[in-house]
């Protein structure tokens, strides 16, 4: 059962991953990428890493890819322009691809990675969220804090980069709009109902 | 300053929203005003201007004398009249048509009529199923007149003081 599911998900994963780089339509490629994330989350669940799997879905599928799709749908990609320099860049691309494949082969073939057995099934009371938390906040607390600070810097930098007020642009300030009272906009005046002297 | 803080707290505790909810909450238990239409009707004014009709005198003679005042006064040009002399020498319409798609139900025809012939009845529940049915011919209008004579007379009597 388990191996059947593994091969099923892996097949979907590989097909979707291939689709990401071969499909010409950008929106379809992005949607394939969503499928890739989702199936890899399913694979992680098979490895009993449900916290990581669900987090992958929340972060990548639920947030990152939504924004990605948002952008991809807005832009009008002209594929013919993109394909113009295909033959020119092909040798360089092949070189990079071969290098990366070789590096991955060397890294994954090293004894540290080789032949890891599937994790033994845990008892029902086993809670890998708690396990993950206790490791993260004791053994790896400094790397964890460091990562969070780096992310914070990135957030602030992103905001600072986009935060600019163009002069001459009119903005609405909802806080001020909300706080407007009747007295600010209405002025009651006394006026005679009719003119004393008839208009000429 | 104090005012600003009070306003801020007011919006923080959603007081105005709760007030709104209280209003709709009260209305949930109010007596409902819906009138169950096909079974019950809203009261109609005697001046209601609905479907047109051509009336007759009590002896059965049609009132219309083909003066064409209604045709002239109609702002939507919905009325078409052709007239001729009848065998007994009186002037009568040979064709009296009202296009209900053009008609704006203003009641000008009714007011202009010197013999109280063309009237708008209080009937408003009529439908057309095929194109062409919206043009009321003379016989249709006379039929309406016969059909609604009681209502027309009652409405006129109720409104007589103000005419």
């Amino acid at each position, binding site marked *: 059962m388990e191996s059947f599911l593994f091969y099923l998900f892996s097949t979907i994963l590989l097909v979707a991953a291939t689709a990401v780089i071969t499909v010409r339509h950008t929106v379809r490629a992005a949607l394939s990428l*969503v499928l890739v994330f989702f199936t890899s989350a399913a694979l992680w669940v098979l490895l009993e890493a449900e916290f990581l799997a669900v987090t992958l879905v929340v972060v990548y599928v639920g947030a990152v890819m939504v924004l990605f799709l948002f952008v991809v749908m807005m832009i009008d990609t002209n594929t013919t322009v993109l394909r113009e320099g295909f033959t020119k860049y092909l040798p360089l691309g092949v070189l990079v691809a071969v290098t990366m494949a070789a590096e991955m082969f060397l890294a994954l073939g090293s004894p540290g990675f080789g032949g890891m057995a599937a994790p033994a099934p845990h008892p029902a009371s086993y809670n890998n969220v708690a396990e993950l938390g206790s490791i993260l906040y004791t053994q790896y607390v400094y790397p964890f804090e460091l990562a969070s600070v780096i992310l914070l810097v990135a957030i602030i930098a992103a905001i600072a980069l986009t935060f600019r007020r163009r002069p001459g642009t009119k903005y609405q300030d909802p*806080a001020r709009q909300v706080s407007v009272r009747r007295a600010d906009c209405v002025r009651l005046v006394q006026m005679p109902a009719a003119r004393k002297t008839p208009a000429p | 300053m104090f005012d600003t803080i009070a306003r801020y707290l007011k919006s923080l505790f959603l007081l105005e*929203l709760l007030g709104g909810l209280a209003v709709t909450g009260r209305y949930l238990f109010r007596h409902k005003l819906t009138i169950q239409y096909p079974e019950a009707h809203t009261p109609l004014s005697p001046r209601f201007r609905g479907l047109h009709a051509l009336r007759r005198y009590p002896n059965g003679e049609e009132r219309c004398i083909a003066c064409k005042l209604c045709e002239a006064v109609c702002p939507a040009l919905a009325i078409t009249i052709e007239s001729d002399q009848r065998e007994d020498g009186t002037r009568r319409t040979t064709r009296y048509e009202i296009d209900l798609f053009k008609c704006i139900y203003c009641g000008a025809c009714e007011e202009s009529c010197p013999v109280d012939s063309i009237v708008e009845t209080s009937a408003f529940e009529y439908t057309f199923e095929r194109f062409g049915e919206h043009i009321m011919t003379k016989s249709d209008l006379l039929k309406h007149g016969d059909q609604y004579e009681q209502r027309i007379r009652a409405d006129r009597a109720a409104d007589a003081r103000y005419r």
Partner: protein
Amino acid sequence: MSNLILVIWTIIKIMMVMVPLLLSVAWLPYAERKIIGYMQIRIGPNRVGPRGWLQPIADAMKLMFKEITVPASANKVLFLLSPVLCIAAALGAWAVIPFSDALVLSNCNVGLLYVLAISSMGVYGIIIAGWASNSKYSFLGSMRSTAQMVAYEISMGFALVGVVVGAGSLNLGSIVHAQQGGLFHWFWFPMLPLLVIYFISAVAETNRAPFDVTEGESEIVAGFHLEYSGMSFAVFFLAEYANMILVSMLASLLFLGGWLSPFEGVPILGEPSIFWLLLKVSFFLLLYLWFRATFPRYRYDQIMRLGWKVFIPITIAWLLLIGALVVTGWAWWNV
């Protein structure tokens, strides 16, 4: 063989959740029309069946026999896929929802996160629907919905983190257990701001009034489901109402003690039971309808301002408070 029995038994269990759920989804619009009608001093639908009780069946019939039209320049596959995505996300989350101590499909360790993850998938249905329709209004609707859902997911998530910190677990069953001990041990009391923010964010997340700019009948006609008709529209509709029930269910599980009784200690009334849970869910659903009958639609920039500038700071501040209570041991609900 045993695998086969397991699969069949699982399907039966899924049916036992889905059938009552879909029935309530069918009758929720009826309740909505009735209650909003009553609030507007009308009596709502009352023609089909006694007091209009069969109205949902009539509506379903009408929708089933309508033609599903696909716009000429639409992306056909994605156009038909997106309602499925919507309803899959809305129903999939029910897998980990517990109805009582024993009644739960999957007692998952990370139940709460799973619900968040699956319901965040629902946004794809809406984006794809808007994009695949190849219509300006649909696209505007889906853009609005995306930005809104991403923004409110954050404040909603933070509000839920407060609950997780208070209960010390991500499992929905254990979160309910952590609230044992009477009315003031339920999380609504220590976390009232979080409850309010959670529920308002949830209303925004499900694109319901007063945050229904996604549909915005008055300016973008019907938003993302403008081009849909017949059953394909009905599926979006079902997904919306299933999401409403899900959100109300989560609110009652996380903040109102789930199936725990408010009269703990009293002989018969004090027993925990599924009826308490259903009562609480109905209360939140009533709130949904009540909001719709009361509030005018928000302006879009104000929705964004509310989400980012008001809700997120408040939730983070309250989160710190809850964290402090838990760490210092003053959290009275953790006994």
